[in-house]
């Protein structure tokens, strides 16, 4: 087995091709666990940053600075009574959260965290992604319908109309990015997610800056549509608390409800990944073509370690600043342990980066490169995640008809225009 892994790591084949199903399975498991952990971290971050936007502290009691709050929440939700309303359609009620979860997790099979750090390199990757992510609406509609109650029904109706109409603008924006991939000597574009990033590398420009402002406009449309697509503020009509109590998941509780939340956050990460892949150069570090000397490679390979080192430093600072009262003894210990964990990860990453510097094509170098890919990809995704929280803290909620008006009358024409202009400019240039 180690030989097989070695030979895989040493080979130049992309994932998902024949003979690598086993490795793909490992990736699936890693991604499943990784996304679940990311959702938990996102949960904590959202509560903390939202609290700090709103001049309050947020979770502070469960673990140091509420770090264990997501685990406490998860435990609580799993132990809660599982209520299925008497009037509900039992089977459909049961299956609805699973549909949503399935859809938002399946999207990860085509998301490339690096040129070889992906489950599969499907040649219709982006099409597959659009198709699967629109299945998520089915889970919501079915949940609203099966609940057999007014508020969930209205929430589900709103949500389905919203997601269907924003998918149109989203799809057109995506197409204009795909068009840009065909601007090479052979004139052949690609739908493969890995291929799209490689096209950006070949052309030496992120698609967000390509044909300025066309690439940027397409990106902006996608950035708005993806907020609507994931039912997040200011487009969170489907679960508008003040209007529909909780929208489509009003009747859900406990673990089923947490599946909805998991699906929502996983979908947020997924759409952000797509935006990063299509417009922001995916796994590429800044200026890979301009600063391509080995020295630069080394400097950029230090970034993951330094980031974790910085986080560890913040944790150490928190430990030092914690009040010296005996009440905080355990919390202080916990935070110190967390700092030590972060510091250990930072050290490990730095060691790998240093080891990978010396020899080309060694295992450490491959590792270091892979870590770099995943790091830059996740950093870009994290920016979007922060934006999601920021939107939620700042803006009121759109009304349903206004949302539809923006979708059909503003975003659709603009994305159509951008698509046509991109095509025209592309033809003229090539």
């Amino acid at each position, binding site marked *: 087995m180690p030989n097989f892994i070695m030979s895989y790591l040493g080979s130049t084949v992309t994932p998902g091709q024949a003979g690598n199903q086993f490795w793909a399975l490992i990736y699936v498991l890693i991604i499943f666990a990784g996304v679940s952990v990311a959702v938990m971290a996102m949960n904590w971050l959202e509560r903390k940053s*939202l609290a700090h*936007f*709103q*001049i*309050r502290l947020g979770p502070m009691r469960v673990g140091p600075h509420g770090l264990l709050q997501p685990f406490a929440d998860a435990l609580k939700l799993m132990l809660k009574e599982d209520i299925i309303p008497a009037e509900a359609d039992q089977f459909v009620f049961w299956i609805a959260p699973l549909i949503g979860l399935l859809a938002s997790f399946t999207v990860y099979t085509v998301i490339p965290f690096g040129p070889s750090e992906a489950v599969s390199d499907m040649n219709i990757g982006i099409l597959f992604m659009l198709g699967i992510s629109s299945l998520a609406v089915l889970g919501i509609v079915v949940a609203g319908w099966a609940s057999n109650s*007014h*508020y969930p029904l*209205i929430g589900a109706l*709103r949500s389905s109309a919203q997601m269907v109409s924003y998918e149109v603008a989203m799809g057109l924006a995506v197409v204009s990015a795909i068009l840009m991939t065909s601007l090479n000597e052979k004139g052949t574009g690609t739908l493969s997610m890995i291929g799209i990033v490689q096209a950006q590398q070949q052309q030496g420009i992120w698609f967000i800056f390509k044909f300025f402002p066309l690439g940027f406009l397409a990106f902006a449309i996608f950035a708005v549509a993806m907020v609507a697509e994931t039912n997040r*503020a*200011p487009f*969170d*009509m489907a679960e*508008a*608390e*003040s*209007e*529909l*109590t909780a929208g489509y998941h009003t009747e859900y509780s406990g673990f089923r409800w947490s599946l909805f939340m998991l699906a929502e956050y996983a979908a947020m990460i997924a759409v952000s990944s797509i935006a990063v892949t299509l417009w922001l150069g995916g796994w590429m570090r800044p200026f890979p073509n301009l600063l391509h000397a080995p020295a630069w490679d080394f400097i950029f390979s230090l970034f993951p370690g330094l980031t974790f080192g910085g986080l560890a430093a913040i944790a150490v600072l928190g430990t030092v600043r914690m009040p010296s009262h005996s009440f905080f003894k355990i919390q202080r210990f916990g935070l110190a342990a967390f700092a030590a964990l972060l510091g250990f990860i930072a050290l490990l990453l730095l060691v790998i980066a240093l080891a990978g510097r010396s020899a080309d094509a060694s295992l450490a170098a491959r590792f270091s490169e892979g870590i770099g890919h995943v790091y830059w990809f996740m950093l870009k995704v994290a920016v979007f995640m922060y934006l999601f929280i920021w939107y*939620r*803290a*700042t*803006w*009121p*909620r*759109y*009304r*349903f*008809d*206004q949302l539809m008006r923006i979708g059909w009358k503003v975003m659709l024409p603009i994305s159509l225009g951008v698509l046509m202009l991109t095509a025209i400019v592309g033809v003229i240039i090539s």
Partner: protein
Amino acid sequence: MTVPLKTVPLDDGRSDGKNDAAIRSSNLDLETPDKPYLDSNELVINMGPQHPATHGVLRVILKLDGEKVLGTECIIGYLHRGVEKIAENRTYTMFNPYVDRMDYCAAVSNGLGYCEAVEKLLNVEAPPRAQYIRVILTELQRIASHQLWLGTHALDIGAMTPLFYTFRDREEILKIFEKYCGARLTTHAFRIGGCQYETYAGFEKDIKNFLTFFTPKIDEYETLLTGNRIWLERTKNVGVISAADAIALGVTGPVLRASGVKWDLRKAQPYENYSKFDFEIPVGTNGDTYDRYLVRVAEMRQSIRIVEQAVGGIPEGPIMGKVPKVIKPPVGEIYHSIEGPKGELGYFIVSDGSTQPYRLRVRPPSFVNLQALDLMVRGLLVADVIAVIGTIDIVLGEVDR
């Protein structure tokens, strides 16, 4: 037919017949709900009494055509405590704290209205120093009430953050109340004939500090909302009520002023020493949710002006007027109203010469303003119902009493 605003009485006060034309001109039919579009089934939804956005225990039955509102029916009484009946079994002094429990977001204003009504019945007046303290605390209460309204209204429309900003600043007002009379919410700040408590040392300084602290905070609220595109879309031309309809329904307070009627009891029938202070009555033009928002924000600024003038000129002297220990008003009846934060807050008291009121009736602004809900939300969407309930600024403790 719409009535031009000029025929609506402005500052001058009493009804002089000019109103009648305005009232006649509004042909309201709130009995029959609108017809559904096409031949679809009506969807009837119970909003409340357990609902995050009905500000307590209001229950609204919505008749919907899809998301469009065809008609509404308000079911009230879930918080009915029989305050008016309680009054008949309590002495005038004993009943004083009960009025704080009606509009618990503006307890000081409620207390002021009641004390003044009884004082009018007794034919006594609070001494000048007491009047200044009353005006200061009441205006602070107006600011606090508007802050609470702004936070919850913005939360209803989906903006979470203003709530925490307004609550942070409201806290400072409540601290002043607490220092003055020991209570934060149901203050029982005033007594019949004046104030029970002398101001504490540093009262004026606290208030001046608050004013300098709070004035820039209003700009902060406005930065979040006034020019916000989404806020504008959600509030402009939503829940419009014309001046004529507002007068016909007896709507008062900021809701009426936002429709363009310059009617404020502090100017129209000055009570306490409001005539001594220089302030303006902000009015709107369209009578929509956005105008009501602007009017209330402007009112906070005007209240700051009033408090600024009053805190500089608190005279020395007694704080209680000549009121007997046992209050036994002469036989008679009295109606006295003040401009509460939510509108005209009136007390009608019938005295039979005993120590207890024979009958006490409250005219709560929330209750009367809530009538306008149906008119405002007809033809709008469910999301607008929430915005309109918020913009009327109801407190269910006052609606149900």
